[in-house]
C-alpha cells in the first residue's frame, strides 16, 4: 500500500497536470468579496446517511434548479474527505458540498474554501454556537446545514420495571448515579455510551470545563473542572452501573441501548433513525443531559454547506445555499431524514413536529461545539484511544497528554 499511497498522492497531482497545472485561481478567501459568476452548471457533493437523505437533497436542488434556471447535479460521495481533497488538488472541485467541522480548518488553511458566511442574507437566524463552529481565523466560512446535540435516552420499559417515575428523571449527577444504580440488573447495566470524547466530553462540559480559554488561544484541557468531569465518568464506569459500549460488545451506545444491554445511553438525535430501523420495538424517551457542578452542558455536532474557492459560479452556489438553509427547506429536510434545523426560526415548528425529541433541540442553549483546529481530529482520536482504558487510568494523566497534544496545535 505504500505504492498505493504514493499512487494516490500523485494521482491527485496528475489530475492537476490534466487540468494544465491550474494555479487554482485566486487565494480563495475572496478578500474583495466579489463572487465569480458564469453560466456553468453546479455540482453538489454530499455524504448521505441513506436513500432518504440523498433523495431529499436531490429534490431540493432540482427544485432550486427549476426556479433559477441554473443546472445542478447532486453526487453522493462514498468517502467525502477523500473526494473533496481530490477535487481541490485538481482545481476542479464540486461547487457546493457537505463540510464537517474537523475538515474546515485544513481546507480553509490551504485556500480551498470560499468564506461566504458574511454574505448570507440572514446570519442572525443561525444558532450562535453553530456560527462559532464555522468561524475560523475570525471569518465565518460557511452556512450550518443542520445540527445534533447529545441527550439522555431512556428505555421506558426498564424504567418502569425499576419502579421509577417521571419525577425520577435525573437533573444532576447524583440523580444520574442514583438511577443508573437502580436500573442495573444482572441482565443489563444502567447506562452505556461510547468511550470517546464525543460522549465523555459532555460530562466535562457539565463540570464547567472547556478545552480552551475564551479567546481560544490557550489550552485548558487539564483544568480541575475537566478532571472532575472525567473522574465522575470513571466512577460511573468502575461502579458497574455504567459501562462503555465496547465493553458490552456493542459498536456504539445506540446498539447497546437497542439490544437491551443498557437501560440508558448518551446519544444524539440520530438515534431516532437507528431505533426505527433496527429496534422498532424498544419504547424510549429522551431527556436533557443532567447538570453537573458547572451547570447543564452537552456537545453539539454540525456540518455546513461549503463552497469551493475554485468554483466558476460562486454566485449561483451562494443562491443555492441560501435556499438550502431556508427555514422551510430545513423543516422539509428534518421531516425527510430527522435532522435538527440550524435556524432558530424553524425551532418551534420542529418541536411541534417531533415532541419526543424536543429535549435535543432545547439542549442547543447550553451546547458546546467540538474543537475545529487543524490537527484536532488526531488529538481527539488519541484521547479516544486512551479513554478505553479509563477505568484503570488516572483521569489527570489522560488529560495531561491531551493537554500537551492540544496545546501543540493551537495557533
Amino acid at each position, binding site marked *: 500500500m505504500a505504492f*498505493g499511497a504514493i499512487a494516490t498522492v500523485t494521482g491527485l497531482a*496528475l489530475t492537476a497536470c490534466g487540468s494544465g497545472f491550474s494555479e487554482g485561481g485566486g487565494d480563495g478567501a475572496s478578500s474583495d468579496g466579489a463572487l465569480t459568476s458564469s453560466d456553468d452548471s453546479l455540482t453538489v457533493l454530499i455524504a448521505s446517511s441513506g436513500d432518504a437523505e440523498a433523495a431529499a437533497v436531490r429534490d431540493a436542488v432540482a427544485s432550486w434548479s427549476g426556479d433559477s434556471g441554473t443546472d445542478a447535479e447532486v453526487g453522493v460521495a462514498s468517502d467525502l474527505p477523500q473526494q473533496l481533497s481530490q477535487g481541490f488538488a485538481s482545481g476542479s472541485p464540486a461547487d457546493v458540498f457537505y463540510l464537517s467541522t474537523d475538515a474546515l480548518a485544513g481546507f480553509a488553511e490551504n485556500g480551498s474554501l470560499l468564506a461566504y458566511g458574511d454574505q448570507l442574507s440572514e446570519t442572525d437566524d443561525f444558532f450562535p454556537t453553530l456560527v462559532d463552529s464555522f468561524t475560523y481565523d475570525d471569518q465565518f466560512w460557511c452556512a450550518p446545514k443542520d445540527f445534533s446535540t447529545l441527550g439522555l435516552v431512556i428505555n421506558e420499559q426498564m424504567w418502569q420495571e425499576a419502579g421509577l417515575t417521571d419525577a425520577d428523571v435525573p437533573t444532576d449527577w447524583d440523580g444520574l448515579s442514583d438511577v443508573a444504580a437502580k436500573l442495573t440488573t444482572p441482565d443489563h447495566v444502567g447506562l452505556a455510551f461510547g468511550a470517546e470524547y464525543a460522549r465523555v466530553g459532555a460530562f466535562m462540559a457539565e463540570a464547567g470545563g472547556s478545552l480552551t480559554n475564551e479567546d481560544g488561544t490557550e489550552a485548558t484541557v487539564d483544568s480541575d473542572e475537566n478532571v472532575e468531569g472525567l473522574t465522575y465518568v470513571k466512577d460511573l464506569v468502575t461502579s458497574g452501573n455504567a459501562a462503555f459500549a*465496547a465493553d458490552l460488545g456493542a459498536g456504539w451506545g445506540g446498539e447497546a441501548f437497542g439490544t437491551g444491554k443498557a437501560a440508558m445511553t448518551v446519544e444524539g438525535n440520530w438515534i431516532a433513525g437507528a431505533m426505527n430501523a433496527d429496534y422498532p420495538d424498544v419504547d424510549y424517551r429522551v431527556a436533557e443531559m443532567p447538570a453537573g457542578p458547572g451547570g447543564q452542558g452537552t456537545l453539539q455536532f454540525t456540518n455546513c454547506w461549503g463552497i469551493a474557492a475554485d468554483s466558476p459560479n460562486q454566485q449561483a452556489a451562494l443562491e443555492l445555499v441560501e435556499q438550502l438553509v431556508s427555514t422551510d427547506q430545513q423543516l422539509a429536510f428534518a421531516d425527510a431524514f430527522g435532522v435538527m434545523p440550524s435556524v432558530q426560526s424553524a425551532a418551534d415548528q420542529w418541536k411541534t413536529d417531533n415532541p419526543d425529541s424536543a429535549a435535543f433541540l432545547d439542549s442547543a442553549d447550553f451546547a458546546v461545539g467540538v474543537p475545529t483546529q487543524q490537527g484536532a*481530529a488526531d488529538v481527539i482520536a488519541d484521547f479516544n484511544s*486512551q479513554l478505553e482504558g479509563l477505568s484503570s487510568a488516572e483521569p489527570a494523566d489522560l488529560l495531561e497528554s491531551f493537554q500537551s497534544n492540544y496545546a501543540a496545535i493551537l495557533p
Partner: protein
Amino acid sequence: MSTASPRVGRRVGAGSAGGPVRPGRTRRPGTASRGEATSGWLFVTPTIVILGLFLLVPMVMALWVSVSDWSGRGSPFSSSVGFVGLQNYDDLVNGGGLAARDFGISLRNNAWYVVFVVPIQTAVSLFLAVLVNRQVLRGRGFFRTAFYFPSVTSSVAITVVWLFLFTQTGAVNRALSWLGIEGPAWFQDPSGVVHNALGAIGITGPALLTDHDLLGVSWWDWFAGPSVAMSAFVLMAVFTTSGTFMLLFIAALQNLGGDVQEAAMMDGANAWQRFWRVTLPQLRPTLFTVLTLGLIGTWQVFDQIYTGTQGGPAKTTLTPSYLSYTSAFAGQDWGRGAAIAFVLFAIIVVLTIVQRAVLRERPVSRRRMSLYEPTATGQKEARR
C-alpha cells in the same frame, strides 16, 4: 495483498519459461539490422510511456511532496510550494509530538503483524502445496480450488465476513465456547497478546522498559505483541494469502525432477529426511519469492484496516499505510503522508535485502560436509 497477486502471476510465468535467454552468438552485436532495433523500440514505447506516466512520474512527484510544504491545493510544482528539506521526515522520527507517537505505534503494530503473518503463511502454504501435490490424493482439483478460493475473493468482502465471524457472539466465539473457552470481543479488544500471556503468569512491565521509549512508545509497549484485534487480522491474512503462495509452491514442486527423489530413496532417506534435505533446498528460489512477496504485502496492509477497524481499538490496528492515508486526506498534511509512504518503502527494501542475504546459497560447511563424506569404515567396506 491484493497488490501482490498480479506480480505473482508474472513471476511464475517467467520462471517456468526455462531460464534466462542468452544473446545469440551467431551474429556480432551491433549488426542487428537498424530496422529491427527501431521496431523493437517502437514496440516497447507504449509500455515505457505508460509506466513512466503512471509509475515513475507519480513516484517522483510523491518524493517531491514528501520534502515540500504542498498544502493539497493546485499543482505541487507551482511556485508557491516550498522546499522544506527533510522536515517532514524529521517530524516523524524526532518530532516528539503526536505525529511521531502515531508513527511509532503504527510501526509497532505492523511489525508484529509481519512477524506473525509471514512465517505462518509461508509454512501453511508450503504444507498445503505438498498436500495437494500428492499423486495419491483423490479430488486434487477440488482441494486446490478450495484452498485458492479465498485469494481470488475481494479483501473488502472477506473483511466484512471476518467482522461478522469475530463479533462477541459470532461464529468463532460460539465454536470456542464448545471447548469451554470464553472468546474475547475480538475487534474491540486492544490488549496485546504477548502482554496478556505475560500477565497470565504474573509479569507486568518492569520500570526499565516502561520508563524509556522509542518514537513516543515505551519499550514495554513495543513488546505488547499484536492486539487481539490485530490477531484476527493475522488469521485473515493467513487465510487469504496462503492459497496464492500455495500455487507458487505447487508450480515449483512440479518442476522438480523425480530422479533426485529416487536417488535419495535409494540412499535410504525416509520421507521426512527427503522433504527437509532434498525437496526444501530445491525450493529455495520459490521460498525467496514467497517471503519477499509476503514481506511486501504485509507491510502494505491497508484494505482490511480501512474497511474493518480504521485503526481502532485504541490505535492497535493503525498501520503506516493507513496512517499515511489519514495524514494526507483527513489531516491535510500531505508532506507527512508522503513521507510515511517513503519510510515504508525504505523498510520494505531494506528487509528484502536482508532476507536475500540470509537466504543466499552458501557453500556447504565442513561440519555439514562431514555428514556426507565417506567414513573410514565406509571406505573400507567400499574397498572390499
